[in-house]
């Protein structure tokens, strides 16, 4: 079980004009692990992941729904977790970058980003890998424009995108076993 204490302390402090806020019970799965906790309604999904579940692989870049560093999968679809309330993930399956590797083995996507130099500082990388994951699960052989569209919501300040593009092409090849 995670440490719900932080959330409960926040709940105790949160007030609106005109009354205390009701904390909300929340049951969800993150990277295959079930959690049952209580959260303040305004808690953002990214804060739940990073601050309460200690899953700091998901990053906050802009906090304005622009950069995509906070991208996670919610029921198999990418979302910007800085723009989803944690309470909206009730019953959902969340997958973060920590959920990619299996038993310490990097998956094709992670290997491809490394081998293609698809990252420099790495800040944008978790979000880009989650976008790659959604792309390849629905389209194992994406063409150039499909790859570009799939990462249009992700900002990288380092690479100039070309190596990210190559990494996704390579990930697709590897995932197909080609």
């Amino acid at each position, binding site marked *: 079980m995670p440490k719900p204490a932080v959330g409960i302390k926040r709940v105790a402090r949160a007030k609106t004009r005109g009354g205390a806020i009701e904390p909300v019970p929340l049951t969800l799965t993150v990277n295959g692990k079930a959690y049952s906790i209580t959260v303040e309604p305004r808690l953002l999904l990214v804060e739940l992941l990073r601050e309460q579940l200690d899953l700091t692989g998901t990053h906050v870049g802009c906090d304005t729904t622009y950069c995509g560093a906070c991208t996670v999968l919610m029921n198999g679809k990418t979302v910007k977790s800085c*723009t989803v309330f944690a*309470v909206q993930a009730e019953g959902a399956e969340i997958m973060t970058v920590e959920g990619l590797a299996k038993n310490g083995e990097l998956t094709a996507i992670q290997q491809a980003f490394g081998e293609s130099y698809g990252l420099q500082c790495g800040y944008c990388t978790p979000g880009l890998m989650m976008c790659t994951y959604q792309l390849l699960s629905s389209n194992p052989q994406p063409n150039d424009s499909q790859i570009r569209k799939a990462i249009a*919501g992700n900002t990288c300040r380092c690479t100039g995108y070309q190596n990210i593009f190559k990494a996704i092409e390579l990930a697709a090849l590897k995932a197909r076993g080609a």
Partner: protein
Amino acid sequence: MFPPAFNYHRAKSLKEAASMLAQAGQEAKLLAGGQSLIPLMKLRFASPKHLVDLNFIPRLSYIKKYKDELHFGALTRHSEIENSATAAAVPILHDCAAGIADVQIRNRGTLGGSLAEADPSGDWAVVLSTLETSLSCVGQKGERRIPLHDFITDAYTTVLAPDEVVREISVKIPPQGSGGAYLAFKRAAPVYPTASVAVQVTLEGDVCQEVAIRMGCVGLTPIRASQAEGVLRGASLGEKAIEIAAEAARSEADPQPDMRGSAEYKRMLVGVLMKRATYAAVRRARGERVDVSHLYA
């Protein structure tokens, strides 16, 4: 950035959502995809005391063909429309859905939320007002069907009563010989367009029988290019007529200068977009398959 604190209500039905809204009064708001509301709350442009979440209401997300209409549940996500074979019957809907922001925002944002938000730069209102569109809305007193052209009255303003929820959006499928296209100019994917134009034409031979042109981001609500429509209606749609119509559309736009560009710049864009959208619409009206994609800076 923490949004301001609020009480959270998870509606199980539309009726329950309407009564929750009525109970909480002016301080309550609905929460659909949250892709407009959550950013606004972070910036304190909105500070609702209560949020009524629509996401757990069953059967509020669907795309169905019914006679000569397409019906969309209010909670249908942009990405569901983008990938729907049913919605593909009206290609302009794909132009619109696929061009909104980015994959992540399209996975979350909803058609109902977009129309209810009535953002002057929002794509759906521009596109759907070139078609016959109406919204079925449920309140405590019952349901009513509101034509889209009566629904949005001003920037960020609709005729919805405080306890009303959009349930369904109905779009009439254009007849044979009709084609539409939607084009926007954008600085990047995850931002609203700088300017956009939707065109729907119905041809008989080369002659334009009917035409609807709406411009986005260049007024408080989608702007109808009536003079441009007048130029094209009854004309044969060659280069000359389209050029004159584009000139008319440019003068009918009412853009405000902002960080996306000057008023003059947006007027120029509107003219170019109108021409390109018209050419694509005409080809589609002739039955050609045409891929349309927004222009990015």
